């Protein structure tokens, strides 16, 4: 993985405050867990029916009945609990998730998220993403700033089918940290010396600058 992506993931890990209940979406978000201190007080939730996820395991150490929603073999921690799918989403919809980190195809300047369908190309179904996006108390996105063709993934409005409207609070990319505010995208931090103008250039909607100096990413978990 590129070091920019690694730094993005490490920076996103700092979004997790002690005591939170957190769901890490499939893909880049799952890797955030590797950047948490070993004794960090947090409860990880997976929508297939578990709280208290422990480290992922290689096949030879795996329990055939113990996976996360992405199909990875995981482990327990002291205090883990198992439950059915209705209970799992009861947690999500009733507001017991403090934070979810999701991937994205597109995010709009009003916080709309599109991450489940590209008509004619990719339509595997929505899974648990709609409820996570719509109901977690805070939704942040981890994504490359642009797609493989260099087109911006942060846009004025989404062109793809939506996962949920006005749900994203913050976006971590391989270039910057960007907040979604009532005024649109606001640049919070840039990555390792990338000029703000370059971030704005790669963003498909106006990018406001904060009044204060822009900090740069710190890669370590600063607590």
């Amino acid at each position: 993985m590129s070091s920019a992506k690694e730094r993005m993931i490490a920076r996103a890990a700092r979004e997790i405050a002690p005591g939170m209940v957190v769901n890490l979406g499939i893909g880049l978000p799952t890797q955030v867990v590797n950047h948490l201190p070993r004794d960090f007080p947090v409860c990880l939730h997976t929508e297939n029916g578990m709280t208290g996820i422990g480290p992922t395991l290689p096949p030879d150490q795996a329990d055939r009945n113990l996976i996360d929603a992405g199909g990875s073999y995981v482990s327990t921690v002291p205090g883990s609990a198992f439950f059915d799918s209705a209970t799992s989403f009861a947690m999500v919809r009733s507001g017991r998730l403090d934070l979810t980190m999701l991937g994205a195809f597109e995010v709009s300047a009003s916080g709309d998220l599109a991450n489940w369908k590209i008509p004619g190309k990719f339509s595997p179904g929505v899974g648990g993403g709609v409820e996570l996006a719509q109901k977690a108390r805070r939704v942040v996105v981890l994504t490359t700033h642009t797609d493989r063709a260099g087109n911006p993934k942060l846009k004025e409005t989404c062109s793809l089918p939506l996962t949920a409207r006005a749900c994203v609070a913050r976006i971590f990319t391989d270039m910057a940290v960007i907040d979604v505010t009532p005024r649109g995208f606001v640049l919070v931090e840039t990555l390792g010396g990338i000029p703000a103008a370059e971030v704005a250039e790669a963003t498909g909607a106006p990018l406001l600058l904060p009044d204060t100096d822009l900090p740069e990413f710190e890669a370590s978990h600063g607590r």
Partner: protein
Amino acid sequence: MRLPDKSCKIASAIAKIKPGDRVMIGGFGVPGTPMTLIQALVDHGADNLTIIKNDANEPGMGIDHLLQSGQVSRLITTHLGLNTHAISLMNTGQIKVEFNAQGILAERIRAGGAGIGAVLSDIGIGTELAMGKQVVELAGKPHLVETALRADVALIHADRADIFGNLAYVATAQNFNPLMAMAADCVIAETETLLPLGGLAANAIHTAGVFVDHVAELAELSKEYAVVQR
């Protein structure tokens, strides 16, 4: 990663209850009724409460203490048959009582806990239980809109718990406890035994700790928990 510690003192947890709050209280008869948390709420004194509980216990027991102390203005319940005092307060207009079919009360609380707005049910159609309720046609048949119930605080009785708030119940002390433990902004559980993390088997947990905000071990079981001598 380690799971956070939610163990607490009963009085400090109960102190969060404000006058006018909606309070769910577990239990069906004696089993599962959090007698000690109820006593702490009497000591705390918050009044004008709406209590949501299957039944009103018996005179001199359980939530009857809250009725005696005048802290309750409204009761959402299914049956008061064993508490003549509660029936008298209702008949003289000192408390307002809303009766629900028992399984519908359970579903409304579960819906609140599940982040669902309401359930559509045909229970009570053609009886006075249907009066005043919104009706929706479903496949040509009328259904009542049974709206979700949530509370500010839920008071729960568990048999065993760990410090993250994972709970296990025994026998018929389960009843409304697992439902109410999902359906309040602040969930306070008393437990007969409090265990360290890992003390409960992950497959035998009835209420996941994610739903629970505070858990307190009971120093002793008062006589109200005992077998009722009739």
